């Protein structure tokens, strides 16, 4: 019984750890910037695909390297998603600060684009999009140096946009006809891809009758490292201090010479980068496809809602609680307790699937919000309802 309980606890915590890792970036971006990033799940997915790519590259390098690809994958995933995040912040989100619902819709649009991107990215696709961007933005950059740019802007756009689109479209078509499958074959396609854990992460730690898989332990450790890192960054570094000051009073911070735009970009980069790290963890757990991100988005939002805004402790506790509850209910861990009453047994069994566990957890969340509408650690004071 005790072993069962421990195993249940471990499984719950490891579910919670993935959740927390996935929610951490979201919590930072939402807590510090008030931005709901619906594309966060897709950033996780990008991180997972980066892991896949890194794995394949290192496979080519041979034995000593391929064992440690996962560490490089962590770095690569962080960098890739952070860059995508910054791009997203600079091109879309920064125009929408203070309009959270609009941000939500816009980032949803981005998430759709990213999903389809993973499905249809191919050599041909890259040629087309790359050429279009180079032509269009290059030409705009050149034209914008002219003194009369303001006047001709509309005309320039009207000519350049279709022109560069047409050139890009036809060159990618020509490339496709010339090289056939070599460039038209999608890199990833709609099928899922699989990442195999390196040797030292296979197997598990035997504990009595049960085993604790090393991958799970690795993820828990990774989560702890990320948490400590974020805590250190926000509380002990100059940029952390700047981020916190911008969060509290943007105008004043700007007056004091803090580059608020840079701070926004850095905050977003870190939040997105953490999504990439979460992606590595997700890749270790199972097959990855373009829909992977969708599976995490709602759960991670729940973590943020329950945890309350701007408090890491809240996110930790919320992720732990949701993880353990989902596992306990879904795996029917308490089933034996109700063996006395057939009615209770049937009720408990009715909910003893992963999807029905979600139903119960959500019901509990709604009940919880009746008592603590602002989450576990609400912000207090006059500024709350500004």
């Amino acid at each position: 019984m005790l072993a069962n309980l421990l195993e249940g606890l471990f499984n719950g915590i490891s579910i919670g750890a993935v959740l927390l890792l996935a929610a951490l970036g979201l919590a930072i971006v939402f807590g510090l910037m008030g931005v709901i990033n619906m594309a966060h799940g897709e950033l996780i997915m990008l991180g997972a695909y980066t892991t896949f790519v890194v794995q394949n590259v290192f496979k080519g390098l041979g034995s000593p390297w391929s064992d440690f690809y996962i560490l490089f994958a962590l770095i690569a995933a962080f960098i890739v998603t952070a860059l995508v995040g910054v791009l997203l912040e600079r091109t879309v989100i920064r125009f929408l600060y203070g309009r959270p619902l609009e941000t939500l819709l816009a980032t949803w649009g981005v998430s759709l684009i990213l999903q389809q991107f993973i499905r249809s990215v191919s050599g041909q696709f890259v040629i087309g999009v790359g050429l279009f961007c180079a032509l269009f933005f290059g030409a705009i950059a050149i034209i914008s140096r002219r003194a009369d740019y303001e006047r001709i802007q509309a005309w320039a756009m009207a000519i350049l946009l279709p022109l560069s689109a047409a050139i890009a479209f036809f060159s990618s078509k020509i490339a496709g006809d010339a090289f056939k499958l070599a460039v038209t074959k999608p890199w990833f396609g709609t099928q899922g891809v699989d990442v195999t854990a390196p040797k030292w992460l296979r197997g598990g730690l035997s504990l009595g009758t049960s085993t604790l898989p090393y991958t799970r332990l690795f993820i828990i450790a990774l989560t702890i490292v990320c948490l400590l890192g974020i805590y250190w960054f926000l509380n002990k570094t100059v940029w952390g201090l700047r981020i916190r000051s911008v969060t509290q009073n943007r105008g004043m911070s700007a007056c004091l010479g803090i580059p608020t735009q840079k701070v926004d970009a850095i905050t977003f980069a870190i939040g997105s980068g953490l999504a990439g790290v979460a992606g590595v963890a997700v890749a270790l757990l199972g097959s990855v496809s373009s829909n992977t991100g969708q599976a995490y988005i709602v759960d991670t939002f729940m973590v943020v809602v329950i945890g309350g805004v701007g408090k890491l402790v809240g996110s930790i506790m919320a992720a732990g609680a949701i993880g353990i509850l989902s596992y306990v209910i879904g795996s029917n861990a308490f089933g034996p307790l109700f063996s006395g009453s057939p009615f209770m047994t049937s009720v408990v069994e009715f909910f003893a699937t992963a999807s029905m566990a979600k139903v119960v957890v959500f019901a509990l969340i709604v009940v919880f919000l009746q008592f603590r509408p602002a989450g576990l650690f609400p912000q207090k004071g006059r500024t709350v309802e500004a």
Partner: protein
Amino acid sequence: MSEKILEIENLTVSFDGFKAINNLNFSMNAGELRVVIGPNGAGKTTFMDVITGKTKPTTGQVTFKGKNLRPYAEHQIARMGIGRKFQTPRVYQKLTPRENLELSCAASKNVFASLLGRPAAGERRTIAGLLETIGLVPKADILAELLSHGEKQRLEIGMLVAQSPDLLLVDEPVAGLTDEETENVGSLLLALAESHSIMVIEHDMEFVRQIARKVTVLHQGTVLCEGTMDEIQNDPKVIEVYLGTEETEHVE
């Protein structure tokens, strides 16, 4: 002595240990016009938040017309007869002044009355009269977001009156107004004081002198002293914490 409309006993409000209001006692008679002054951070706005139910007291109680306000939500307190004007004008920007007033004026404020009810002739007359009083007749049917700051201030006072409350809480009604507008608002408040109890929070000493009969000074969440403007100005405690010399006051 007329009856007390508002009584506050041993009120304390703390946010995470910081006491914004500290053991405050206060009372106001029906029909009184009271001005509350105090330096920044004295707890003036929190004081209003507590009376209107936005913030619940940590300890102590607020009694309005003999009723303890603690169990009531903001809208219930508003219906009991406490109206509030905010520091920065908060009117409904995407509605016209007339619609703003209509919303405040409506006798019944539940969903189905709003859905089915049409404004009664009496209400329409009140609104027309109010528009005139606040001087917005020519702009009654343009969106409120197009009004100037001063016009919004007046509109909000109008909305407050439309609610026909027994007690008006007015937070810095002349902030950002020109001298002329300030005087307009002053005479408007004095006119209203004939039939309502009013509490005004204000920084502008010139204005306070224009309207004040009795003044309460808040400092660090408690009442420092109370009295007429002259008494206040000569009180050594007040001079020490707040007024300083008169010259510096005007600068603020």
